[in-house]
């Protein structure tokens, strides 16, 4: 407990200088050479893949059997692993994510917290009664059984002979596991049970032993799966056969290969019609048909065959309850089918918005990156969550049972669909390492999500993106927040750190630091360079600089490597005019001031009508009685003439202009250097906005003085007038001082009776 902290903090602002060795360079513009990896033949100094860049490949052929009675999956897979690296591999690593649910899971053991913070649920979890985790029944290749070791969520295959560079290794695994009830014990995947009609809706992922990534940055990325840091996976081709009860409808990563066997002729016809429908989704299975189907209990099983090329993972969903609609999104490089699968419980929201939100996402994201390279993009309804896989994602957003919904529910659903479909770009195609850096996919994705939302509708209530929305997170005590460049498992305040702050930083980079033109080109360049590859943070940092000719080291340093915040203050403004040496003007000026003071002087005012002694007695007068000190003398005139003769043409022009000079002192109280954006308002009420790049802080990071010249006289100055820098303290942004009303004051004084209700729809239908 910090008893006296609040007194000390004030004294030591600006923070960041404490305890540092004074002989080292702590300049905020110091180049990032010490923080980021040295460029090499795999990754160039320009941020592109190097001439020796490689990535390994994992191809899968899988047969899956879904057991709807026991909620269990049984599978067998044949993996062909291709070693494109220049290295010999003595062993291979696979990830067994389901083992996070195993009863001996490490994630139970490393959880901390006292007894006080426990409740019945957490007590129960000390002895989890759900038998989760993979049951591996066979691991072999053509030479027979393979030797393997399981270390929690990681499995090592011990090779008899090292896998040589350029070599391939084919092996197969058999397994089964119990599917978790997502509604009770949670999970990115699992099932939801619908009691009313006795049906299950499965959203299935992380369901098979998956190859780890081996690369030049991490070697094997086999950091244990603890729950927060998501996945990192190699690209490959998948052939997956999913056997489900015959009346189930399956949706999955990839193209449905045996549509002609699986769908009836009516459905096939509609499916073909959807491939031509650009404006409205076409129902392949409509609500009426789905409602009928969910009452089915037909005997027998059916196998749905899917094929996906160049994907890093595979996910699928299955239920009797699915309504299915689709429409086409046209691109130069090929058509994409935007599709949705949802139970009737998702309507009316889902039939109206889901597929269209998918289509809008593809359009906006592609403009900022590349054409969507896969044949389908699917949104599956899944209460409460949002989770992404290649081509398919599981999204929440369920109306009330009476079919109405609040505006909040609607925007929540559209946002989650945009976000999860957006993940196709980051990290499914631009395949960054989520286990290491959550922000590389969540932050960049949230940034484009914001742009997509704003294109979906004017004034869309985006949760993240605008600079002012991150202020409350960044402004406070730094003790429990961490820089963006923090490993996924060690992040405090996950949402703000890995989603909100990097998304805001990218938005500021685009709108304020680089400008849209330079930013958009560089960002697109990053996307195209690393499309279907594995970028690391340096590759993004370097590309953004290399493609724009803007040194951004200070920006990455401040926003990504520190917890500094923005607080720039206008400390003082002084007004000056150049003395043009013209004795006439100077003296007139003096005279005016003299008269003004005389006029103001209270005794003078009261005495002005009195008759003085001198008024009565002429003899008191002398030379000085009539002498006007403000009259220009001959001598002064001569001196001025000489002065003017010595002036250059340029100098005399400046003098003629009779400019106002303002010396403004700024200080950087938050530590994070940013551009200084000033709105000058003049006495004639006109405005001039001036943008000074952050480099103004280059030589002194904390205090600067700058002089501004105007013909007009200043009335007031506002710093950061468009709320674009995330300045946390606005009180010191004005001259003269101006106090903005607080949120509290605004609430208190606004008419509380004019609050709109957020589900007026329901009101209407109730009437």
């Amino acid at each position: 407990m910090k008893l006296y902290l609040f007194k000390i903090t004030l004294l030591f602002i600006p923070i960041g200088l404490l305890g540092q060795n004074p002989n080292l360079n702590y300049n905020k513009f110091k180049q990032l050479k010490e923080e980021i990896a040295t460029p090499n033949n795999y990754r160039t100094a320009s941020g592109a893949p190097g001439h020796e860049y490689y990535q390994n490949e994992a191809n899968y052929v899988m047969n899956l059997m879904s057991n709807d009675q026991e909620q269990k999956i049984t599978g067998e897979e044949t993996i062909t692993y291709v070693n494109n690296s220049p290295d010999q591999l003595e062993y291979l690593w696979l990830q067994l994510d389901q083992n996070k649910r195993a009863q001996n899971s490490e994630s139970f053991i490393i959880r901390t917290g006292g007894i006080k913070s426990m409740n019945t649920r957490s007590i129960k979890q000390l002895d989890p009664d759900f038998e989760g985790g993979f049951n591996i029944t066979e691991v072999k290749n053509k030479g027979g059984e393979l030797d393997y070791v399981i270390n929690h969520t990681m499995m090592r295959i011990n090779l008899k002979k090292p896998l040589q560079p350029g070599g391939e290794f084919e092996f197969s695994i058999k397994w089964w596991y119990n599917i978790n009830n997502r509604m009770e014990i949670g999970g990115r995947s699992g099932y939801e049970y619908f009691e009313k009609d006795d049906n299950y809706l499965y959203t299935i992922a992380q369901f098979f032993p998956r190859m780890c990534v081996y690369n030049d940055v991490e070697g094997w990325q086999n950091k244990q799966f603890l729950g927060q840091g998501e996945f990192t996976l190699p690209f490959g081709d998948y052939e997956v056969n999913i056997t489900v009860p015959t009346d189930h409808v399956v949706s999955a990563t990839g193209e449905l290969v045996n549509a002609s066997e699986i769908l009836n002729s009516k459905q096939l016809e509609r499916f073909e019609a959807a491939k031509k429908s650009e404006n409205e989704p076409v129902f392949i299975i409509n609500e009426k048909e789905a409602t009928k189907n969910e009452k089915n209990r037909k005997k027998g099983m059916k196998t749905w065959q899917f094929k996906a090329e160049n994907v890093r993972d595979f996910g699928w969903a299955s239920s009797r309850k699915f309504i299915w609609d689709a429409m086409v999104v046209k691109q130069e490089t090929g058509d994409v089918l935007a599709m949705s699968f949802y139970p009737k419980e998702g309507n009316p929201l889902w039939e109206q918005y889901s597929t269209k939100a998918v289509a809008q996402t593809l359009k906006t994201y592609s403009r900022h990156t590349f054409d969507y390279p896969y044949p389908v993009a699917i949104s599956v309804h899944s209460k409460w969550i949002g989770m992404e896989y290649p081509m398919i994602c599981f999204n929440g957003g369920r109306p009330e049972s009476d079919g109405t919904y609040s505006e909040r529910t609607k925007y929540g659903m559209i946002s989650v669909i945009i976000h999860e479909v957006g993940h196709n770009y980051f990290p499914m195609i631009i395949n960054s390492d989520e286990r290491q850096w959550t922000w590389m996919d969540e932050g960049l994705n949230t940034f484009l999500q914001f742009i997509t939302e704003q294109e979906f509708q004017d004034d869309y209530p985006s949760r993240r993106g605008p600079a002012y929305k991150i202020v409350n997170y960044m402004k406070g005590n730094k003790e429990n927040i961490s820089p963006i460049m923090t490993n996924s498992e060690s992040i405090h305040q996950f949402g703000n750190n890995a989603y909100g702050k990097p998304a805001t930083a990218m938005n500021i980079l685009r709108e304020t630091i680089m400008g849209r033109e330079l930013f958009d080109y560089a960002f697109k360049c990053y996307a195209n360079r690393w499309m279907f590859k594995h970028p690391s943070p340096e590759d993004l940092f370097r590309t953004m600089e290399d493609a724009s000719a803007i040194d951004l080291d200070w920006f990455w340093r401040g926003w990504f490597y520190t917890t500094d915040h923005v607080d720039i203050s206008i400390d003082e403004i002084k007004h000056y005019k150049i003395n043009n040496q013209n004795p006439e003007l100077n003296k007139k000026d003096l005279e005016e001031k003299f008269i003004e003071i005389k006029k103001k002087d209270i005794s003078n005012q009261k005495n002005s009508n009195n008759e003085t002694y001198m008024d009565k007695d002429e003899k008191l007068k002398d030379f000085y009685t009539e002498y006007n000190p403000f009259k220009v003398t001959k001598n002064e005139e001569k001196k001025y003439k000489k002065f003017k003769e010595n002036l250059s043409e340029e100098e005399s022009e400046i003098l003629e202009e009779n400019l106002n000079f303002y010396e403004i002192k700024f200080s950087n109280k938050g530590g994070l250097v940013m551009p200084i954006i000033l709105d000058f308002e003049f006495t004639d009420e006109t405005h001039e906005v001036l943008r000074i790049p952050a480099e103004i802080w280059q030589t002194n990071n904390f205090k600067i003085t700058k002089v501004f010249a105007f013909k007009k006289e200043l009335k007031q100055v506002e710093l950061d007038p468009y709320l674009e820098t995330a300045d946390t303290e606005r009180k010191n942004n004005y001259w003269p001082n101006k106090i903005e009303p607080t949120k509290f004051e605004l609430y208190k004084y606004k008419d509380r009776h004019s609050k709109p209700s957020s589900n007026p729809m329901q009101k209407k239908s109730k009437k």
Partner: protein
Amino acid sequence: MINSFLSIYLLFNFAIHEHYTTITNINFSPEKNIEIVMEFTAHDLEYYFEKEYHKELKLGSINELKDSDSLIFEYISNHFYIKLNNSKITLSYLGKEVNNDESLLIYLEKKSFKNLKSLEILNDLLCKHFPNQQNIVHLEGNLKNSFIFNSKETIHKFK
């Protein structure tokens, strides 16, 4: 991954939910009032009420629980207090604001406080069901400072 809906599960300490944060601004105004704005993520609080009290708040909808304001205030009173000079102050509830971007703002107030010699704040909002919950408190005015509360550190004292 995102989660705009209700979901946090202790069993696997599994974060489909990425928020886990409340932010409270406490302003000791020059007029000697304590002005408090508390920001929740609306669905966090809704989920919490479902788990803890089996009540669906449905904030901002016509179906919103009639007594949602008093329930929320009661909940806050049990999980948040300010002690000034060793005695708990009584806060009054001014109202709330539910926004479409999921932010839920609660306005609380205490009129005319005595001279401030010591201060103690308890904040364990939402900690019971969300083990990763972090509650930020910013003190505004002369006391400018901020503190983070979580399930392990629920009280901060200042003199």
